[in-house]
């Protein structure tokens, strides 16, 4: 009964979406539209909860529950498992989409009605497209008769809190950009005859989407680092790239919106970025769910679903980009500005973000292009991205240090030089200090440390100078970026690794730590048995710093083996131990990693997220005042 009700609510949502489409397009009756928007949201909410309910009670008559759940799953993961699969995640996608739809509606007033109604019309079209996709190709409420006795969803690697919340955060990001897309298309269609400040309306959505996309991506990396066992946190996997590209365009967009607000320049460019951000989210969805390429992240799908999404993407992208091609000329202005100004630095940032995005896009789809035109298959992996993205990012980050201290309008080049002298000095001092500490030299390390302290020192000096032009959110977010670069540099360049065979009571030295293999014990967990190695970590003064306890687990009911690393973190480094194969007679394979500065990656990402939240708050207040 519940699953059929769930299916019904999907059709109900479709009805309301179509209703919203026609009433915002033709009828324009506010009462009808408000009913459509609100009922559309609640209908999506109910669908979502009905699927959660089916998972929680382990209703194995529902195919989606059979494929993705298991009676022994803890409650938290039964719920998280709902959006961990393709069909269920579409319901979450719809929920966020209809919520964003509601927030757009809330902006409606007498003055902006033509603009907001047009936006709602386009948003409704997007909702209809995804609903049709869900109902006809990815329906989570399909049944199997007779009901199964047990489910198949028991992979313990996926039962993790970071992984549970990672999709919802990402979706707020991807879907949040839909509002910017709809507003951009609405502005282009209407030629902005009524001179609406569309950028003011767009900004909070862009900031919200970007902020949550940032933390969503960071959590995915956190999970990879802790769970996968070799200390890596980014693999340039196509699905990771699919989240990075909207993030890059989103970064460009949120910065250039500032320029449009301040001096009405670059409107056409911003309209294009707003289209591209969401378009990249949708293309990303296509790449991940169509079966066109394989990746550890892809949902296993058949090409027919892929064809549907591709057609929808083609309509959405084709229409919006052709519209842009035809109409954007009207939004050109003569408000040029010097490259040596705050606006100039933001434009430079935009160019670099776009170039990096284009490069990541190229690398991601290139294997597909080669396959289509030749009979060959090539692969594009991490070395390619490191060789291309890093050199392009370096000048972008240098400019990022200077940008915030420039004023609006042209700045005297000599003045700029004077302003940056203190930060240059601090950067050099900190760089030398770090190299004296780590005693290991590398060009990349050099570049990374310089860049990171360049950002940090410029930022901090800005606060000290009480520069009127800075904002708290910018300070926090940019500081976060500086720390992020610090963490990335440390963990990539100065990592040390020891792979050894150890018998109980053996010792090994890594950097200035002594690691003693104290004992092997057996552990019984809730649904697993495990072999655990107890390791003592001593520093050079023989003091015990910590005990590390990596485990190898066996889940008997589901026949799965996992390995749990044991990590000790502090501000300077992570000590990371993994237990391999072994036995009492011959000893055990032990892998020990010394990962410097890793924690700053997480702290930096968190600060960027907080900066975004502060900015969101500020911008919402501004919007409400209006």
């Amino acid at each position, binding site marked *: 009964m519940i699953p059929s009700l769930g299916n019904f609510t999907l059709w109900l949502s479709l009805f309301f979406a179509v209703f919203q489409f026609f009433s915002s397009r033709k009828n324009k009756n506010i009462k009808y539209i408000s009913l459509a928007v609100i009922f559309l949201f609640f209908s999506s909410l109910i669908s979502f909860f009905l699927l959660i309910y089916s998972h929680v009670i382990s209703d194995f008559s529902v195919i989606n529950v059979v494929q993705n759940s298991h009676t022994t799953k803890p409650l938290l993961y039964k719920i998280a498992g709902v959006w961990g699969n393709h069909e269920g995640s579409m319901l979450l996608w719809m929920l966020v989409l209809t919520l964003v739809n509601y927030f757009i509606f809330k902006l409606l007033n007498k003055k902006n009605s033509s603009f907001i109604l047009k936006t709602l019309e386009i948003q409704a079209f997007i909702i209809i497209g995804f609903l049709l996709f869900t109902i006809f190709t990815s329906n989570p409420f399909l049944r199997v008769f007779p009901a199964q006795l047990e489910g198949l969803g028991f992979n313990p690697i996926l039962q993790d809190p970071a992984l549970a919340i990672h999709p919802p955060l990402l979706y707020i990001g991807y879907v949040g950009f839909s509002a910017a897309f709809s507003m951009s298309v609405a502005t282009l269609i209407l030629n902005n005859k009524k001179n609406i400040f569309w950028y003011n309306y767009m900004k909070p959505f862009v900031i919200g989407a970007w902020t949550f996309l940032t933390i969503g991506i960071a959590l995915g990396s956190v999970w990879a680092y802790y769970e996968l066992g070799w200390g890596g946190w980014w693999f340039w996997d196509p699905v990771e790239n699919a989240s990075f590209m909207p993030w890059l365009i989103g970064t460009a967009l949120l910065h250039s919106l500032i320029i449009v607000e301040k001096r009405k320049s670059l409107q056409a460019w911003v309209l294009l970025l707003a289209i591209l951000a969401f*378009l990249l989210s949708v293309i990303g969805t296509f790449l991940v769910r169509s079966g066109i*390429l394989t990746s550890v992240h892809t949902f296993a799908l058949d090409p027919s679903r*892929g064809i549907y999404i591709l057609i929808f993407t083609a309509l959405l992208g*084709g229409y919006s980009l052709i519209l*842009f*091609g*035809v109409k954007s000329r009207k939004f050109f202005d003569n408000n040029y500005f010097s490259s040596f100004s705050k606006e100039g630095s933001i434009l430079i940032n935009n160019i670099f973000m776009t170039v990096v995005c284009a490069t990541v896009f190229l690398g991601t789809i290139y294997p597909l292009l080669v*396959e*289509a035109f030749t009979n*060959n298959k090539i692969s594009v992996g991490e070395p390619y991205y490191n060789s291309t993205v890093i050199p392009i990012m370096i000048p972008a980050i240098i400019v990022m240090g200077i940008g915030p201290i420039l004023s609006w309008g042209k700045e005297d080049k000599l003045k700029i030089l004077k302003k940056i002298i203190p930060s240059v000095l601090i950067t050099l001092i900190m760089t030398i200090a770090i190299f004296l500490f780590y005693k290991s030299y590398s060009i990349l390390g050099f570049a990374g440390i310089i860049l990171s302290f360049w950002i940090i020192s410029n930022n901090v000096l800005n606060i000290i100078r009480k520069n009127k032009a800075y904002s708290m959110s910018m300070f926090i977010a940019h500081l976060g970026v500086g720390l992020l670069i610090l963490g990335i540099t440390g963990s990539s360049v100065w990592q040390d690794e020891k792979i050894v065979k150890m018998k109980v009571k053996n010792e090994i030295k890594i950097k200035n730590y002594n690691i003693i293999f104290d004992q092997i014990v057996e552990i019984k967990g809730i649904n697993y048995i495990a072999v655990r190695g107890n390791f003592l970590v001593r520093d050079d003064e023989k003091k015990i710093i910590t005990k590390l306890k990596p485990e190898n687990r066996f889940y008997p009911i589901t026949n799965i083996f996992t390995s749990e690393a044991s990590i000790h973190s502090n501000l300077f480094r992570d000590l990371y131990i993994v237990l391999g194969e072994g036995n009492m007679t011959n000893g055990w394979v032990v892998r020990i990693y010394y990962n410097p500065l890793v924690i700053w990656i997480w702290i930096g990402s968190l600060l960027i997220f907080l900066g975004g939240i502060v900015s969101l708050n500020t911008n919402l207040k501004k919007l409400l005042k209006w």
Partner: protein
Amino acid sequence: MVKQILIIPSIFFLIIVSIFFYLLIIDRNPSEIPSNLINKTIPFFETESLFKNKKFISSEEFGNEIVLVNFFATWCKPCRDEHGYIKKFQSKEKLRIIGINYKDDPEKANAWLKDLGNPYSDVPLDKNGRIAIDWGVYGIPETFVISSDGIIKYRHVGPITKKIYKKINLLIATLKLKK
């Protein structure tokens, strides 16, 4: 001029979408890698044979007729699943099949073939997996079609299915005509 530039993003986009569309409609396996040895001579190898007392020398065994090469192991479940088709290739299509036993125990291989039936004219042993590496094998079972002049014409990764069985037969019929 500006108008032309503005339409570029949409053209770019539509080209990419068309390429994606093409890739979706053709018959392809996104995770299968094409063999780099197609239309090249088989790699030479010399190793023990499971049944015969003399060594298996590849230059003597290929180059006379169309041959199938099947990499298999007793510990590989899909190999067991596809064995029926391998036997069919031998019994129905009268093809000569060489079964390269990959990283396996010869005693176990013997028992496995006794149990499931032996369609192979010979079973060279690849105990350390080097022969497989020379053939570019990455996931057993793998089946190769070798033409009568010792050229690799086709490689399938994974168990033989009905579809692949038909495909291989068609290919062999074409090869026979070319002679």
